[in-house]
């Protein structure tokens, strides 16, 4: 008798969130990125649809770290000191779907760049690249509460993705999103309950849940990747099960976590048993990215430009293209 593949029927689906606004949408983007919409578990095309391919964003730091790992520095080149040029490299040469501009230099301990400087950089970035922008704070609550409303303001109408709102600090950034028409990243410390709580708090503050993208702080390969995968899987299952407070698309910070690992950073001379440095970090990041795709991540934020290329190939295969 013919075999009938048992197919799961899901009550819910992942929300659809679009970032970027084209000219007729009130912005100046050449393209938009639509996230989410899945009606089944990741890449199980026989029992669900994935209407929107997971997107790949390149992270650009407004001030590069003091010790940029050599293979990464080599891959990016001199433009590492020029965020705008760095972003253009990512888009024009490597085809990044979006740019994540992180204001690490604004952190009081790391340069303390002013909100005005950050706003100016944002304007320049918007003018330079046609893809949607993710604008990410420096990580220090008080500074971000000064800086994010400013950068949000100069980007008004462009439908950016602002990061992040956490359970201890969400009001200011939520207000900025509401005022300037952006989307919001809600952050949780790898805890599914806290993720839900932040979504409720943000929603209580007036932002519709359809404007939220979730972010669970993760670790890379060897540093908590599996736990992150479990959280992502549980989140997807909750969304498919109909939990509206966990139905938002998921974002993952891959590059910033992976390149902290010694396995990615250590030069070959110091650890010859680990093999060629060029490939190591690249593989570390690609593998982490792939794992997160299987977990159900809709937007990956990557560092090494080649990872974008490799991950795109993997995605092509997973999407059956």
């Amino acid at each position, binding site marked *: 008798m013919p075999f009938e593949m048992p197919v799961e029927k899901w009550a819910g689906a992942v929300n659809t969130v679009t970032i970027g606004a084209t000219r007729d949408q009130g912005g100046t983007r050449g393209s938009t990125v639509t996230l989410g919409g899945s009606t089944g578990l990741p890449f199980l095309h026989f029992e669900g649809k994935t209407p929107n391919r997971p997107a790949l964003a390149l992270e650009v730091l407004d001030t590069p770290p003091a010790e940029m790992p050599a293979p990464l520095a080599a891959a990016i080149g001199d433009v590492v000191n020029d965020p705008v040029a760095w972003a253009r490299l990512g888009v024009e040469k490597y085809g990044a779907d979006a740019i994540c501009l992180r204001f690490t230099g604004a952190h009081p301990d790391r340069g303390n760049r002013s909100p005005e400087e950050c706003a100016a950089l944002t304007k320049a970035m918007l003018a330079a690249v046609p893809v949607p922008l993710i604008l990410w704070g420096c990580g220090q609550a008080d500074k971000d509460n000064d800086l994010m409303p400013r950068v949000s303001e100069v980007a008004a109408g462009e439908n950016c993705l602002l990061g992040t709102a956490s359970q201890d600090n969400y009001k200011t950034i939520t207000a900025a999103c509401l005022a300037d028409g952006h989307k919001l990243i809600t952050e949780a410390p790898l*805890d599914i*309950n806290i993720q*839900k*709580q932040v979504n*409720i*708090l943000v929603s*209580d503050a007036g932002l519709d849940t359809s404007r939220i993208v979730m972010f669970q702080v993760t670790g890379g390969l060897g540093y908590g990747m599996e736990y992150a995968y479990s959280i992502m899987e549980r989140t997807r299952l909750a969304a498919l099960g109909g939990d509206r407070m966990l139905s938002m698309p998921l974002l993952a910070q891959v590059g910033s976590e992976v390149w902290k690992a010694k396995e990615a950073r250590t030069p070959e001379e110091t650890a010859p048993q680990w093999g060629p440095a060029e490939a190591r970090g690249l593989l570390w990041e690609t593998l982490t990215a792939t794992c997160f795709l299987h977990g159900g991540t809709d937007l990956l934020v990557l560092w090494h430009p080649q990872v974008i290329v490799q991950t795109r190939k993997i995605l092509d295969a997973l999407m059956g293209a």
Partner: protein
Amino acid sequence: MSTHTITFLPEGVTVAAAAGDTLLSAATAAGIGLRAACGGKGVCGKCVVRVASSGSAGYEEVLGCQTPITGDAVVTIPEESRLADGHALAEDLTGGVALEAPLAEGVSVELPTEGEWYRETAAERLLAALALQRERFSEVTLELTALRALAALALQRERFSEVTLELTALRALAPLAREGGRLRVALADFDGAGRVIGVAPETATGTYGVAVDLGTTTVVVGLMDLVAGKVLASHAELNAQGRYGADVISRIVYTQEREEAREELRAAALDTIENCLFELLAPLGLSREDVIAAALVGNTTMIHLLLGIDPAGIRRDPYVPAVRSLPTLAAEDVGLAIHPRAPVFVAPGVSSYVGGDITAGVLAAGAAATAELTLFVDLGTNGEMVVAKGDWLVCCSCSAGPAFEGSGLDHGTYARPGAIDAFRYDAEADTMTFHTIGGATPVGICGSGYIDALAELLRAGAIDRRGRINPEFPSPRVRAHEERYEFVLVWGREIGRDDITLGEDDIQNLIRAKAAVYSGVTTLLDSLDLQPSQLERVLLAGGFGHSLHPDNAVAIGLLPDLPRERLHFLGNTAFAGACRALLRRDARLDLQWLARRMTNFELSTVPGYMDRYVSSLFLPHTDLSLFPSVT
């Protein structure tokens, strides 16, 4: 080693203390109770005292536990730092409980002085008299062993397997025997064996027993009339062990630190009970020998510490105490200053963290008596709870922490005169009305007051569901404090002291405590495949008494969202259970049965507990659909 003189004000008590000792130990030596929730580790900030100095203020505020003595000093102990008398939480919940085979009773006998009995020993004559009292026998043989058995048979429906005469009784009997006539015999029940512990001329004085609730924070002692079968008076005091730590774990840790620690803790508990006994007996002119029975309930650690049993096993995996169920002991062996051979019945416990106070509470609350699915929660430091349906019971301890007893909170206090136990906030008029226990000037806020405060602030929008104060809330009551915010509940200017505030740290502390209770309840129910909605009765015991508002308890997610008529607030059920044990043999047997039937769940090992706990750290809960009536 040099010694210095420390003078404590306002008492004016002086004590000699060795250089290097702390002010806290000097206060203890002077007999002054100083709050020390963390056991003297310098963490809780409750032992603040004022040392007279030449500075502008005239004094310097220091932590008593961290300040070594370096010279003579005059130290003022502020009111807030004192271990004061506890609020008398004891209510007589024994109403309607009839006396039946009590733990001890006075039996009237006629000691024959004539006929063939005259030449027999006093002891034999007494036993025969006990036997003849019922006029059950036409003839009695003179074998002492037979007499014992006959006396037992004659007495109260064959309660006792045999009756023996204690030395104390024999000593009292000897001078009375020659006279004969009517005597009063004090007869005690030692787990089914009868003991005559005293003999006295027939007088008008009654027989008395004491019920002791040995709580971690508050000790309640009640004096019971064992003839009328009711509570005559009760007295509550703060457990003096508090100076060694606010919770059972810190006290167990203390026993591991010093050789003398176990004895210190035992003495502290006995002192507290002794103080209560004095307060009860003196006004009635009763002597210690008049108290011929004691029923003692307490959590497992409290019992171990009182009896001088090493409690170390309680807090180490697999969390097994040294003993769960004790035989009835003699008072002088325990160290209680009542009749030396009086029976001390200790309610049996279930596990390391669910003790005899809970079995006694379950008995008194009638939690196991009916076919209704019942949840019993003791809302104290240890947060024990029992789910019962008829003869099937499970229990756990969720370790809520002392927040509901006011510990660890800026203005927290246990329930005592001056504690605010209720709040109402009118957001439009920005007025806060409150009620204090005893109507006295507020000295702080107790557990039920905090529950009201959280619920009111959440309703008004002054705090978000995470417990964060809204800095933009349109009221001057919201103001910056250290690096966060606080809400002024009571303006100091209205009551002649400092403002009474609620800070964000306090709120987090309270949310953690309520989350522990709620997640304990849901984990226990889930382990049994039950839903909270299936609970037909929720019985709440503890120092809240009648001042806990069910709507507010649900609004903050402390209790499941159930129809309010299913929620019942009882008082001190542990104490009520102790009273029952004094009055009735079947109560004592029921306690043994309950302790054996209750199955303990160790929450820390149940998977999913942590997850439930984190999702309960929200007002009322991360899953808002669980609380439809308040969201």
